[in-house]
């Protein structure tokens, strides 16, 4: 059980990014957060693993208050939460394997890891993770030689290395082609269904939201303006969509593809 209570974030320049946000996520859910750019989606996701420190409120995960965790404890929590980013956030000049292995940093000996030394089982695990996302043959290439879709799969493999119980995905498909978007989200869906990993994902396209979400919250100006179940989101009308996204929003369709592989 994951709970967010009265979460507020005010940046130093006075911008209110989150205003009294509260919601709960049951284990194994695929929660999608929707909202315009600047509505607070990224801030919300980054508050969960404290990449951004919230100004007020609580984040409680299985009884542990993440928002009050000490640095050492916070690292323990972080390593159980995988994170996937819109721009992949890979070290582009390093090779794929090194990037994937860096997902293991929270587990390995901090000193030997500084010399890029990882246990053999971690290396095997990394190859297995790459196989799982279908790019095992690219393991020794530099990341900047890979396509966008392949880079995001490296991002997923890196998150997998953490053996996460929860994955935060910050617009994971926003910089990819619609076709690739499905491929990436299907990987996340499989993790969600097969390993019961809770997924918190921010998305833009309504089609994708309707296809993958088990629950949806909508943010506008840092406040929750919409909560819906899987059924409710599938029945969502353009009118409701515009309520969340504003009058100027136009529904953009993403043609669903057949499953890959």
């Amino acid at each position, binding site marked *: 059980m994951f709970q967010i209570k009265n979460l507020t974030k005010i940046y130093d320049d006075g911008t209110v990014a989150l205003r009294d946000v509260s919601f709960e996520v049951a284990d194994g859910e695929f929660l999608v957060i929707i909202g315009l750019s600047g509505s607070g989606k990224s801030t919300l996701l*980054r508050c969960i*693993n404290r*990449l951004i420190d919230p100004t007020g409120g609580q984040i409680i995960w299985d009884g542990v208050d993440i928002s009050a965790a000490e640095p050492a404890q916070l*690292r*323990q*929590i*972080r*390593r*159980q*939460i*995988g*994170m996937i*980013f819109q*721009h*992949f*956030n*890979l*070290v*582009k*000049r*390093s090779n794929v394997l090194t990037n994937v292995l*860096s*997902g*293991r*940093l*929270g*587990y390995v000996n*901090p000193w030997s*890891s*500084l010399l890029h030394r990882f246990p053999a089982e971690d290396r095997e695990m990394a190859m297995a993770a790459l196989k799982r996302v279908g790019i095992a043959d690219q393991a020794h290439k530099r990341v900047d030689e890979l396509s966008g879709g392949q880079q995001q799969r490296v*991002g997923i493999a*890196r998150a997998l*290395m*953490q053996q996460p119980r929860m994955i*935060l995905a910050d617009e994971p498909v926003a910089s990819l082609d619609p076709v690739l978007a499905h491929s990436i989200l299907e990987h996340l869906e499989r993790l969600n269904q097969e390993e019961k990993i809770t997924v918190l994902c921010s998305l833009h396209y309504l089609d994708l939201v309707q296809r993958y979400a088990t629950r949806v919250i909508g943010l506008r100006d840092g406040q929750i303006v919409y909560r819906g179940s899987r059924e409710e989101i599938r029945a969502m009308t353009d009118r409701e969509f515009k309520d969340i996204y504003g009058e100027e929003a136009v529904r953009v369709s993403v043609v669903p593809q057949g499953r890959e592989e």
Partner: protein
Amino acid sequence: MATRTTKRELQPSLVSPPVAGIASLFIPGLGQALARQVQRGLTLFGSLLTLVGLFAWQVSLLATREQGIDAKFVKALDRRPAFVIPILALIVILWLWIAWDAYRQAQPGQRGGLSVFALVLALFFILGWKISEINLYKLATELSDAKGPLSRVLWPWEAAVTRDVETTVAGADILSPCDDLPPPSPPVETPGEPYVVADPTCGDLSQQVEEGGVLKTVPGTLLTVVGRGFEPNTETQIWWSDPIGNKFQMRQEGRYLAIMTDDEGAFQIEIHMPYRLIPPSSEGRQVHRVEARQVSSVGDLKFSDALKHNVEKMVETIVLGMMATLFGIIFSVPVSFLAARNLMSGSPLTMALYYITRTLLNIVRSIEPLIWAILAGVIVGLGPFAGVIALTVHSIAALGKLYSESIESIDPGPIEAIQATGATRLQTIMYAVVPQMIPPFVSFSIYRWDINVRMSTVIGLVGGGGIGFLLTQYIRLLDYRSAGIAVWFIAITVATLDYVSAEIRQRFV
């Protein structure tokens, strides 16, 4: 342009065209200012003032001894009419032109012409030509005189090799002046050995005598010098040696005296005794000596001292540049962290530190390494160490700036991602920051190494060690061949390094 036009239409001239013209006649530029062309007026006023100032300075240089403006001007006019008259005429024309320009600017709807500025530029150019002493005629006529040294610099390799030389000498004593005692007896001839005899064996040296206010040369006694037993058909130099040990090759009409021996190894030559080099106060019998010398090369070709010194100093130069680069890198890394805005923006204190570091780096960088070398030479004396210090100081400032800029431009994404995996701060730096830093770091370091070696070739000019030090010495000794070797070495090293550093940088980035 359109907005300017409307502006002019909205704000017509404050005065009528004739008034503007007359105003500019009294104070150049005032008329333009009154016509609401303040910038134009100020520019013209400033230009004219500067030109008049430069002209006055040049005139005063032509007449340094005269007092008063009038006297100076008259003197300058007398010395260089071809310079003074045209420039003065042009300045007067410019003045009138400015007045006419003011008249035109004040007319409604008139646009600012640029012809007046063309005249201003032309005047600056003419005065600049004079001040910087440009003399194309000299360049053309004196180039031929420099052919010798230049060709030696361009192709110096004759000086790269040498042979041992062997000198064969024989001489005969000459008494000066003749006295009552018997003159020195001629040397005894040993068959097969070089032998020289002079006749007579005493005489007077050449001298200059003042006669009715005119210096007149009185040549010394004519000696017949006969030599035997030398190498046949070989150049033989005639040297003179005086009682206090001065030895010099004798000259005749400005040329060094040398004669070829005949088939038997004998020669005969007539010479006048040279001028005296010993002080007039010296007394007693003075026995001079006339010598015949044959210089012959023996042994194999070997590398000359000049080449060896150049190689030594070239190595010193490269090492100097490398050491300075190494120290520069070591010190500039911590400095670059202090000068990176994104790392220092945490608190007002760190921000203050950031500004102080940046300012210091800028100041140090703006002072040329040559000046640092002079300062370092004051502390540690001349030599390569001074050069190392100078280049290190400059490298720290230059690299500190470059590194800090590359720190500022790293992608924060990977940092965020690595932090999210539960990594420690040190791990985050190793996995997210360092990989991004390495390419620019390597690139800038090699670039700096390139610059430092290049600089180290000239830092010796001010005593900072390395090949530049040798180069200045050779040039001062007029040893253009050896200097040429140094120039070639510098050119080869710099070109090679240029190529190598470009290659390495291309691979890394």
